[in-house]
């Protein structure tokens, strides 16, 4: 905790967010869920799986209202199971494709589990005990089962096409079209499924499931941002997801972007990648604006504001080529706590679009295009969400004084503790 607080030391609003989050968290759906599942061993196992397989999604899923929580937890676990098969380079290709293409049937087979994953596959334990997930899945109302099976079918087949096709997913992505298609399979489809589940639960209007492009963009924006951030990690693992159509304009040697002498080229490639992501912003905001349920809104908005903050951080940042760049924990907590309404979300997007704009470099070949994309996003906001605030509203004076006192007291306590 101390290092997290120290990292945010120059940012009082993050400090206060961290402290509030740690000590003054309101009674939440998570606690409610913990009580609900206390006497249900199987369900508890499922939420344990969720905790273990996803650090970032577990909390936001548990914060959902009762009508949706279990359905989305199981949707996540089923897709994680699918992903664990796709991810495993030790599996025989034919066997892998067979599993991927039939996974939407497998989830209806009581007792099915899978022990053939390589020993280093990080989520192999999930598949080893997958019968637990299947039992819980079969407890879901049919309307939810149908959605989950449908998306599993599409994603499994998409992944199999990629694994066996010309452009092997784990080797290279050629065109921007391939890139979009890949992101659609692994993330856009999740957006589709989530929208279908929201609509089926009755918490959201059925229209949310109709506009497929908007749901797709929700997933694409997250996935593409992660793909940029994970350049180095993926490269070290022998994968590359950045489409050649983008980087090939600047270099023949994708792995060579890490070399210091190629810094200029690397900067151009990075800005071209960021440019490609920026175009999804209008769709993301349109989607978020149409949501009605508070827990669904938080669930959808939190990953999106994290993504825009990450995008601003990775832009024109050579560190991306050397390590995994991450936003500060304090920033993350501040963003999570602010993502409760559309005004705040738009303000956060605007702030980070501006941050990105201030990092735009006139010597970069994509300078004007980034500039135009920044203008486009801002113009879109002023046209479609008029009266949106430009910056996050400041807390009222009395509460911020109180929180600052709490911050200082906690800091003092933690520091004293550390030097005891």
């Amino acid at each position, binding site marked *: 905790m101390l290092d997290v607080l120290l990292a945010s030391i120059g940012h009082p609003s993050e400090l206060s967010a961290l402290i509030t989050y740690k000590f003054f968290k309101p009674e939440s759906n998570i606690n409610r869920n913990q009580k609900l599942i206390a006497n249900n061993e199987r369900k508890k196992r499922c939420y344990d799986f969720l905790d273990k397989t996803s650090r970032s999604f577990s909390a936001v899923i548990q914060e959902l209202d009762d009508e949706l929580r279990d359905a989305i937890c199981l949707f996540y676990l089923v897709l994680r199971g699918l992903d664990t098969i796709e991810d495993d380079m030790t599996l025989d290709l034919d066997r892998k494709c067979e599993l991927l293409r039939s996974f939407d049937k497998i989830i209806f087979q009581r007792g099915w589990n899978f022990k053939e994953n390589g020993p280093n596959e990080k989520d192999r334990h999930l598949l080893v005990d997958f019968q637990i997930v299947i039992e819980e899945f079969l407890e879901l109302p049919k309307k939810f089962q149908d959605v989950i099976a449908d998306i599993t079918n599409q994603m499994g087949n998409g992944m199999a096409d990629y694994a066996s096709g010309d452009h092997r997913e784990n080797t290279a992505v050629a065109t921007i079209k391939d890139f979009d298609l890949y992101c659609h399979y692994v993330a856009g489809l999740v957006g589709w499924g989530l929208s279908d589940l929201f609509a089926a639960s009755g918490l959201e209007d059925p229209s949310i499931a109709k506009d497929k492009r908007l749901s797709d963009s929700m997933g694409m924006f997250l996935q593409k941002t992660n793909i940029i951030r994970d350049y180095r990690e993926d490269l070290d693992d022998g994968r590359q997801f950045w489409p050649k159509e983008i980087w090939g304009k600047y270099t023949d040697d994708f792995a060579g972007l890490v070399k210091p002498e190629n810094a200029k080229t690397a900067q151009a490639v990075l800005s071209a990648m960021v440019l490609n992501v920026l175009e999804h912003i209008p769709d993301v905001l349109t989607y978020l604006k149409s949501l009605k349920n508070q827990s669904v809104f938080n669930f959808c908005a939190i990953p999106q504001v994290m993504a825009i903050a990450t995008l601003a951080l990775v832009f024109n940042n050579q560190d991306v080529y050397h390590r995994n760049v991450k936003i500060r924990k304090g920033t993350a907590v501040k963003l999570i706590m602010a993502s409760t309404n559309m005004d705040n979300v738009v303000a956060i997007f605007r702030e980070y679009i501006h941050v990105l*704009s201030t*990092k735009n*470099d*006139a010597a970069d070949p994509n*300078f*004007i295009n980034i500039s*135009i994309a*920044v*203008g486009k996003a801002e*113009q879109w906001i002023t046209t479609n969400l008029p009266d949106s605030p430009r910056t996050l509203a400041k807390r009222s004076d009395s509460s911020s004084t109180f929180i600052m006192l709490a911050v200082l007291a906690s800091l003092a306590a933690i520091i004293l503790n550390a030097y005891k």
Partner: protein
Amino acid sequence: MPEKYLVIGGNGFLGRHVLEQIRLRKDGSSIAVFDIVKPADAPADIKFFVGDLRKFDDVFAALDGITAVIHTASPPHVNSSNPPRDLYFSINVDGTKNVIAACKARGIKKLVVTSSGSVISTGEAMVNVDESTPYPPQAIDVYTESKIECEKVVLAANGEEGLTTCTIRPSAIFGPGDRQLIPGMLEVCQKGQHRFQIGDNSSLMDFTYVGNVAYAHVLAAEKLGDVKSEAAGQAFNVTNGTPIPFWDFASKVWFEAGDYMPNSKKIVLPYGASVVIAYISETIYNIKAMFVDKSQLKEGLSRSRIKQAMSSRYFNISKANRILGYEARVGLEEGIKLSLAAIKSN
């Protein structure tokens, strides 16, 4: 369909690009030009009329056999505290009335007139404004006041005696032949002032490549001849449709001109500090003005100019998209490069 065009002000910055856009259509149209002077390099394929816009006979003579008129003439807009009001009004308003009268007398059906995005400016920020925005009660300056009157006169004449009219409202025109925008930015650079940035660069500004504005004029003339088009009697915002942070445009110009200023070396002056500097500059100006003839003085940094640089100014151009079928043909980057190449070759 081939037209017989008369381009009034065809020797000017915008006018020359209108000629080029007509030529690019390659539809067999003929071009004539009306201007106050004939340039030495006037192309042979163009019939040149030298005359005064304010004299009916001069204009009437040039309109013989003409089917479409594109009127781009306007006196240069000088930044001065003592603007030539009479000159602005006599050319922009009386001159335009003269053109309208002469068109009617010749039975001409199509008249496109250059207006300005500033006609709806109140001096405050302009965010995504469209053509439904009313004229402000007080124009931002005398020049713009005359342009508002000009536009009113032109649009009121639509439908009179078979004449159809419309106006084009560009904003921040730049391109080859430009004497203000890009040369002004290069001057800042030569003085070494491009290190200073006023404000946080969060305001957006529309810039318009001159060839695109010219293209919109020719499209408008074409639509005026089409009975199904709604163009007649309308004003159209025309920009590149890509507003960008104001200083980005300048940074790109400087970079392309060979004077790259990295972000790390920029000095950002907050709005408040800039206003103080401007106040001092204005005071110096006012003191000088006590001793020197005002028309000889060039205004430095003024508070109103800072406000302009600090406020967003961008337009909704969907009306021109929809009715004229207009879309920018030359983007900002290409436009900047063309402008600098033209400056270099001169």
